[in-house]
């Protein structure tokens, strides 16, 4: 089982996340202890297994009830602003993520936050949209874009601030095959460290390291050649009992 460490790692040290529920408290993650330093890591698991919660820890969108989370040496709980400047998050539903009426304006908003002067923003935004392949839709309303185009626009908005780490929460869920291919191609060329939660085992298999989450805990961690077939088996026949509380 690979277990990386170091300053360029995303680290969860014995992290538990709980949330209030109607009947008391719900445990979303339990005692997760992992360090991720690979340039690309995939996280797979059933719905409700804790994948999104796990990803959100590294952007400070979810706070641990116990344990600590660090991103490249910075404690997320201590300096969430610094972490968010370095960590971009792409949500499953881009319509929630795009806050401006058109893709170009949304990317401009990111550039504005990054301190890019007004005179340079439009050209830089169009360049980014060109890079993700939707420059021809730059001025269209986000409501007129397809799901794939919205996802790519959200992606461009995140890339605009040049993060060191990208967290992608089920990025291919809403995409058709063509846009999925386009996204995979784009991910391949990115220099950032990527942590991708996904149900898309094809996408997971492109990462050198795959984590399997079940019931809020990591039940497998290794190269896709070993982990993905095991995960498929568990989906069909049940997960290992020792992973459960």
């Amino acid at each position, binding site marked *: 089982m690979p277990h990386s460490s170091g300053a360029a790692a995303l680290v969860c040290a014995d992290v538990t996340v709980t949330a209030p529920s109607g009947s008391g408290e719900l445990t979303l993650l339990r005692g997760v202890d992992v360090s991720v330093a690979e340039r690309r890591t995939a996280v797979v698991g059933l719905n409700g297994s804790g994948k999104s919660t796990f990803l959100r820890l590294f952007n400070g969108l979810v706070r641990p009830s116990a344990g600590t989370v660090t991103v490249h040496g910075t404690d997320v709980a201590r300096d969430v602003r610094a972490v*968010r400047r370095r960590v971009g998050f792409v*949500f499953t*539903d881009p319509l929630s993520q795009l*806050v*401006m009426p*058109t893709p170009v304006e949304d990317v401009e*908003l990111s550039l504005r936050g990054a301190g890019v002067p007004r005179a340079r923003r439009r050209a830089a935004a169009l360049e980014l949209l060109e890079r993700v392949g939707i420059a021809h839709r730059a001025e269209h*309303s986000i409501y007129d874009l397809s799901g794939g185009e919205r996802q790519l626009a959200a992606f461009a908005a*995140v890339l605009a601030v040049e993060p060191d780490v990208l967290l992608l929460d089920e990025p291919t869920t809403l995409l058709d095959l063509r846009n999925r291919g386009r996204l995979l191609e784009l991910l391949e060329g990115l220099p950032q460290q990527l942590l991708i939660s996904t149900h898309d085992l094809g996408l997971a298999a492109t990462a050198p390291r795959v984590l399997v989450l079940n019931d809020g805990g990591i039940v497998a961690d290794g190269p896709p050649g070993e982990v993905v077939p095991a995960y498929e088996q568990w989906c069909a026949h049940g997960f290992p009992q020792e992973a459960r509380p």
Partner: protein
Amino acid sequence: MSRGPDLFGSYAPGTSVLHRAPLWAKALGLVAVSLAVVLAPSWRVPAVLTGLLVLAGSAAGIRARQWWHGLAPALPVLVLLGVYHVLGAGPAAAADVLLTIVVFLVLTRVLMHTTPLSALLDGVVWLCGPVRLVGADPGRIGLAVSLMLRSIPFVVGSVADLRDAVHARGLRPHPVRLVTPAVISTVAYAQRTGQALAARGFD
């Protein structure tokens, strides 16, 4: 999700005089129209201004269909208000009230059609600069305005989706059946948007 009615319109690139006009000139125009309408002694002033703005907007590329899409959702309210004012204060007063509303709807559409929202945002932020004196952040105010404009079509579209869902189940879309899910979906949308903003560092 359905797209809600395009109440205010959105920016369409162009080279018309209005497209090329600087933001400060548009702001002055906005103030001038507002003062003229508010201080006008009769309905004729908003009527003339509406006509002029429709001409200017059409020259900037706003098509008849877009004018209709902007005004149609307001028609039920305008009719109700018209009847109320005709009965209560007479036709001239009713025309004054209705044309005052219409002139601002038309003005908003012309402004939105010819000005990128990011430029408007810059203007709002500049205009709100003095709030720094009391510790507020003008950037946040500008962002709130843009979020409001961006969210109206979402909320209206989600109500349309709910109406369709009720129809699909063979029920009548009674407003009471729509209110609770509409509020829940709007709150959930607000939470997701808040999270997305936080993730982008706008917290």
